[in-house]
């Protein structure tokens, strides 16, 4: 035992070794850990995409989405699922419980999908693809390829760069924007077909039959063998043009070139992208947004893409006129956010160090101060070992832990100080005494904090997973600090303290506390401890204050997350549904001019005909259409935080009105800004989900709800997830007519499909391993002239004709009736029900308030809706009630666990009650402080409150223990209570002060952490002050007087 004591606390060898080890692994982890801004949580969620070329949204909904949903519904561990059914494809977003292992979830999902697949009605439906999704799918770096070259070259090079970038293992995908794909276009001339009586299906069949490569087996000769190979695939447009389609009566062949225009050209323009750097003019280019795989190191991914790009540009084949530059780069953002937290960490350390200087002698302060970075490094190493990335949450956790863990060092150093200089013991004796005296209280004190943290680790959901890193980091840091304090600091302080001469000098802190100690004792004895009645009066008063604070808490604004600064802002503008790309471009020009002129905007990318990737990062958004001619998006990157006056979200209002001004002469636009700002899900905080059987009705209801929501103050950017509806011409074939003409429904359908779309039928062979362009068959439309695309006029529908087998051409209007209706662009399901979500941001007012404001109206409206239409409040409210609820449970568990620990420690049931009484008083402080400083209650505020419970009881433990000691030494309960409180004034204040000061820099650095830090700061302040008289008062009330006779007057 002694040997162990020697080894652990007296000899420096183990301490030195550990110190070296911690430093080494810490520095190594610091250099090698994956760095990211927000932790890339592994939330098991996936997108299931199934394509069915040519099917209508309604068809897809019924025949693909529904069977899939029916299977997915029964998945174990499923949290939510929703779907979008489009023209030609279906997307289902599946989210599992956040704590389910990814691989397990995917396996289950895959199995279910395989079952559903067997129920698909048509063989044309392709196999569903499952794509794992990260919480945020925002690109980590965006490259732009631009230059004065031919569009075809641009397309080719963009494809090449894409392929190269996607070859990086950590890159999930590269999204190309503003690119026109290249295909071999066969544009049939409708009047030629009709004049010659050739059906487009004949053309298609001829083409497909001819476009084949096939191995014909092997020919084995006596001396040599040959492979036989049919090389039939088209490799030049001329070959396609020469393909005979039919032979007329006079033996004349009709070749494809006669009835169609064949050319290898760019596809229909779907979107354009432009970028502007530092207020420069917009340049057109192709964007390549690199999305990393979940869990990959952002900075490494960026570095790798940069290396590849440099390599590409240096290669001989790179066209000189082309430039490839990066426009947005998350590394910058990460580094900046790290710098911010780093600086608050540094400030916190400095502040704590200054406090140490006041509390301890410079030598002891130096030891404690040096122990701090070592603790941080060791914590980091352990976190790395647990598989975490180096993200800002860990940094925050360490900053939070800083103020708490320094208490241990103070405790240990004070013990040494007392032993060496007050009791004048030898170093070894002082060390052993310190360990003996303080090991248990220090451990107990840290343990209560850890116990408060543990239930928080159990909170589920995305938020739980997101916030979990904090308690884990704090727990690790606290445990590490214990280890370092006793095994490193004590033995190694030998070098600093053993031969110190000036140790006996009285410290500043001692002088101050000496002065107030007496006063406090007197006051305590005269006022709260005068009699049990007095004591009870104080307790009741404090409890009354607590009740008052609860009333206040009920009125405080509540929100899930406080927004934080985010340099990336997404602007989405939706034009009227019939808008063209050119109209979108015109609007983009106006908005772009405004954005370009703002000095606080560093750069921006304009996406014309598509949404900005910032707005499509979440699972819910991924379901919605993000490429359409009426969409327009900007990714705006603000200048760095230090170069602008305000926080990013404070510019939103200005930006909104600026954009509004810029487009004041444009009708029918909807503008929406996306600011993710630290919220883990990135979704709009207000979401009202409407479900019902019919979309017509749903759209009308949605319009009504949108109107009501936009009348709520604070609800900004009200929209629904369906967007503007599309007009649909719905045909009904007349069976008798079809029969008369001898033409089948499928023939009609396929012919019209070819006429309207540009479907792909096989591919065209390119040299080498280049991507083979698709062969697309389409029809020339009168209103389009030489451009590609479908009909523009509603009347053109009446020109649609099909060609019967005998060559007759029949007007579609002759064999089909049609009606015009409006349908949504996409059919969205939420949990298998047709749904529309009306959503908005909350600015200047919390989401909860806005929802509370609209709820009565919604209920009133609902009574007017037909049977079967209901609304549910989703978004932050649903999320916060769930998360807040689980935090409440965590809080109760924490208190119970602390109670059990204290009961064991004090061997009493009453004393823990005294100590735990501090917890509500601390929380009272938090809420009253919130009231004064206008702080909303957020999820992280609750985290703060729970942590607070763990920290605040520490003061109580110290006080009660001292009182018990005094009582044991023969004092009366009253005197013991008063003396106990007064004696511990100094350590109580000093530990609270370090914790509070350690948090202040973080509180001021970013609004996101404001509420968390303030919860602890206010709570600790209140609990420190109140504990000084409430604990003695309770002690008096709840402690059985051991020897009431021996009341000794205090000198």
């Amino acid at each position, binding site marked *: 035992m002694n040997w162990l004591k020697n080894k652990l606390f007296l000899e420096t060898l183990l301490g030195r070794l550990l110190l070296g080890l911690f430093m080494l692994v810490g520095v190594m982890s610091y250099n090698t850990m994956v760095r990211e801004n927000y932790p890339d949580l592994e939330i098991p969620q996936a997108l299931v995409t199934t394509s069915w070329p040519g099917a209508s949204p309604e068809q897809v909904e019924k025949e693909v989405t529904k069977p899939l949903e029916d299977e997915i519904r029964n998945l174990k561990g499923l949290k939510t699922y929703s779907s979008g059914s489009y023209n030609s494809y279906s997307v289902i977003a599946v989210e599992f419980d956040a704590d389910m292992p990814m691989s397990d979830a995917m396996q289950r999902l895959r199995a279910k999908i395989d079952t559903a697949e067997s129920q698909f009605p048509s063989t044309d439906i392709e196999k569903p693809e499952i794509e794992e999704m990260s919480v945020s799918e925002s690109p980590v770096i965006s490259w732009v390829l631009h230059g004065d070259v031919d569009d075809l070259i641009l397309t080719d090079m963009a494809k090449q760069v894409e392929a190269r970038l996607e070859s990086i293992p950590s890159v999930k995908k590269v999204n190309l924007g503003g690119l026109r794909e290249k295909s071999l276009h066969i544009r049939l001339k*409708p009047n030629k077909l009709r004049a010659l009586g050739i059906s487009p299906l004949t053309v298609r069949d001829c083409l497909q039959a001819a476009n084949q490569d096939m191995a014909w087996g092997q020919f084995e000769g006596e001396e040599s063998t040959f492979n036989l190979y049919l090389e039939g695939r088209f490799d030049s447009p001329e070959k396609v043009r020469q393909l005979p389609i039919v032979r007329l009566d006079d033996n004349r062949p009709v070749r494809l070139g006669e009835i169609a225009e064949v050319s290898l050209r760019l596809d229909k323009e779907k979107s354009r992208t432009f970028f502007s750097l530092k207020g420069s003019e917009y340049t057109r280019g192709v964007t390549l947004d690199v999305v990393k795989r979940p869990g990959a190191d952002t900075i490494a991914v960026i570095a790798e893409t940069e290396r590849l790009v440099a390599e590409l540009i240096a290669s001989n084949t790179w066209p000189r006129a082309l430039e490839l530059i990066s426009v947005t780069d998350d590394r910058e953002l990460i580094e900046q956010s790290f710098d911010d937290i780093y600086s608050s960490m540094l400030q916190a350390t400095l502040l704590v160090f200054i406090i140490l200087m006041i509390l301890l002698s410079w030598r002891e302060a130096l030891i404690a101060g040096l122990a701090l970075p070592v603790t941080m490094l060791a914590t980091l190493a352990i976190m790395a070992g647990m598989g975490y990335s180096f993200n800002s949450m860990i940094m925050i956790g360490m900053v939070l832990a800083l103020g708490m863990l320094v208490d241990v060092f103070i405790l240990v150093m004070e013990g040494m100080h007392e032993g060496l200089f007050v009791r004048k013991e030898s170093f070894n004796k002082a060390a052993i005494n310190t360990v003996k005296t303080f090991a248990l209280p220090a451990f107990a004190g840290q343990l209560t904090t850890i116990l408060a943290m543990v239930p928080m680790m159990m909170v589920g959901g995305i938020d739980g997973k997101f916030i979990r890193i904090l308690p884990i980091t704090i727990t690790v840091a606290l445990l590490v600090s214990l280890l370092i304090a006793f095994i490193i600091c004590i033995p190694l302080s030998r070098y600093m303290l053993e031969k110190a001469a000036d140790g006996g000098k009285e410290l500043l802190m001692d002088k101050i506390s000496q002065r107030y100690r007496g006063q406090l004792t007197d006051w305590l004895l005269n006022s709260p401890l005068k009699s049990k009645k007095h004591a009870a009066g104080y307790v009741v008063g404090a409890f009354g204050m607590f009740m008052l604070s609860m009333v*206040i808490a009920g009125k*405080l604004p509540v929100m899930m997350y406080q927004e934080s600064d985010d340099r990336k802002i997404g602007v989405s503008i939706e034009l009227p549904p*019939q808008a063209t790309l050119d109209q979108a471009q015109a609007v983009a020009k106006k908005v772009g001019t405004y954005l370009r002129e703002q000095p606080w905007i560093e750069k921006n990318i304009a996406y014309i005909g598509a949404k900005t990737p910032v707005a499509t990062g979440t699972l819910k958004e991924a379901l919605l259409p993000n490429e359409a001619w009426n969409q327009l998006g900007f990714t705006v990157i603000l200048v760095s935080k230090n170069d602008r006056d305000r926080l990013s979200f404070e510019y939103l209002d200005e930006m909104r009105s600026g954009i509004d001004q810029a487009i004041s002469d*444009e*009708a029918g636009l909807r503008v929406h800004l996306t600011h993710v700002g630290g919220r883990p899900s990135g979704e709009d905080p207000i979401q009202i989900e409407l479900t019902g059987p019919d979309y017509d009705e749903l759209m009308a209801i949605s*319009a009504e709800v949108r109107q009501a929501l936009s009348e709520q103050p604070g609800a900004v950017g009200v929209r629904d997830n369906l967007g503007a509806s599309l007009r649909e011409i719905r045909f009904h074939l007349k069976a008798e007519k079809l029969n008369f003409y001898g033409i089948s429904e499928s023939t009609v359908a396929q012919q019209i499909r070819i006429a309207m779309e540009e479907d792909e039928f096989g591919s065209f062979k390119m040299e080498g391993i280049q991507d083979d362009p698709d062969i697309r068959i389409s029809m020339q439309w009168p209103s389009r002239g030489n451009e590609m695309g479908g009909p523009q006029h509603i009347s053109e529908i009446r020109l649609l004709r099909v060609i019967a087998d005998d060559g007759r051409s029949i007007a579609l209007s002759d064999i089909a009736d049609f009606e015009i209706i*409006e349908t949504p662009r996409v059919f969205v399901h939420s949990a298998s029900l047709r749904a529309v979500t009306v959503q908005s941001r909350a600015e200047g007012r919390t989401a909860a*308030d806005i929802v509370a404001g609209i709820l009565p109206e919604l209920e009133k409206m609902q009574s007017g809706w037909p049977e079967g239409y209901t609304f549910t409040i989703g978004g932050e409210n649903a999320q916060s009630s769930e998360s807040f609820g689980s935090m409440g449970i965590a809080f109760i568990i924490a208190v119970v666990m602390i109670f059990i620990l204290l009961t064991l420690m004090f061997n009493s049931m009453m004393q823990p009650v005294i100590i735990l009484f501090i917890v509500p008083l601390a929380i009272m402080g938090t809420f009253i402080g919130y*009231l004064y400083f206008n702080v909303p209650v957020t999820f992280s505020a609750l985290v703060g409150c729970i942590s607070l419970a763990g920290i605040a009881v520490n003061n109580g433990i110290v006080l009660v223990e001292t009182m018990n000691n005094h009582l044991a030494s023969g004092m009366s309960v009253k005197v013991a209570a008063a003396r106990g409180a007064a004696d511990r004034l100094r350590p109580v204040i000093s530990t609270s002060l370090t914790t509070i000061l350690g948090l202040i820099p973080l509180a001021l650095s970013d609004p996101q952490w404001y509420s968390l830090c303030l919860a602890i700061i206010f709570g600790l302040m209140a609990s420190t002050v109140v504990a000084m008289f409430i604990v003695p008062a309770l002690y008096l009330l709840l402690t059985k007087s051991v020897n009431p006779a021996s009341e000794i007057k205090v000198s």
Partner: protein
Amino acid sequence: MNKKYLLTGIGALVIAFGVYRFAQLTTPDVGVMEPPPARVEVQVMKPASVSSWAFAEGTAEALRKSFLNFEQSGKVVYIGEMADNSQVREGVRVFGPSEDVRKGQLLAQIDNRESVADVRSLEARLQSARERKKEAEAGRTRAENDLSQARSDYDRTSKIYQKGVVSREEFERANTDLKNAEAGLASAESSLQAAIAESKSIAADLNRSTVSLEKTSLFAPFDGVITSMNILEDNYYYPPAGATSSKEREVSSAIVVVDDSLYEVRLEVPELSFTGIEEGQTVYLAHDDQALYQAEKNGFTRGEFVKGTVWSVSPSISLQSRSLQVKVRTEGDASAIRDGMFVQAWIATAEKQNVLTLPWQTLSFRNGVPFVYVVTPENTVEMRWVDLGLQGLDSAEVLEGVYEGEKVVIRGQHLLTPGSKVEVLGAKQ
């Protein structure tokens, strides 16, 4: 004690501030926020014209089309020539007969040597017959002379005989001579008649042969364009047998001449889209819809199209195709279409002037029923269901729902619900 007051004062202030903040929290936000008005573009309803169309297609054929054929077989020996000495061919313009020219342009001839030889031999025979006629005429003259000689001889002899100067024998001889001469005249007369008859018959033969010589040539029947030449010089030609359809005749006729100034298009119009097509309606024809689209935009003032009118409308539905036949004849310049072209026809079935119209994109639909938003003087919108009448290419007639002078939202209506506030954008057209 100042300190105490100070502390009390500060405490009171703090509490007062707390009460104020609490009061702030508990007073609910009042009222509703006025959402910003939606920006819209409007169209002020005023009378305009709208026309509805029926669409059909058919093959254009020239109204006058001549399939020229030789009436007999033979070798083609001559192909007509143009002014520049080039042979006539498809696409050249040829002239037909006119006031002063009895026959049109000679286009081709087949071998006529046999007929020529016939004519020649007949001519030779006619010549000899005519010679013979002359001879017979001479013979008759001679016989007449002989007769008069014989008559005068007889008269003299008879006088002398009665006087008895000559012998009875002499008298008898003279008498015989007279009778011989009379018979000689008669015979000369008949041989003349024979010669005349022969000559006539040969002339008739000759005439016949000449006619058949004409049948070996082809002449342009009217001003037009040659659309088909199925003969070559020195090739043998057989007249076609049993060609009935235009298509067959087109390929079998020696030469096809077409009058390209006037076409007829036969349209098969399905019974459903038939309603409204009447004789005399204007029809626009072009080889594809695109040309018609472009022309429609400029009100059919220019472009690659041909104007025509409905010439006839068959009242019965064809059993084969369940369609009605509508014939359209072109008017004026028909150069944009060609004979045999498959053309698209847009028939202006109805046109209304001075009616309220709405562009298609203005209309929204719910359950297939169209509606629009009308801006009220208070700058809010009102939803109106509308009844549509005539449906034009890009606008439709409004029968009911909106009235003249009202402002109808034409852009931005997707943002509106009944009662929404709007801001009407003015300047933009």
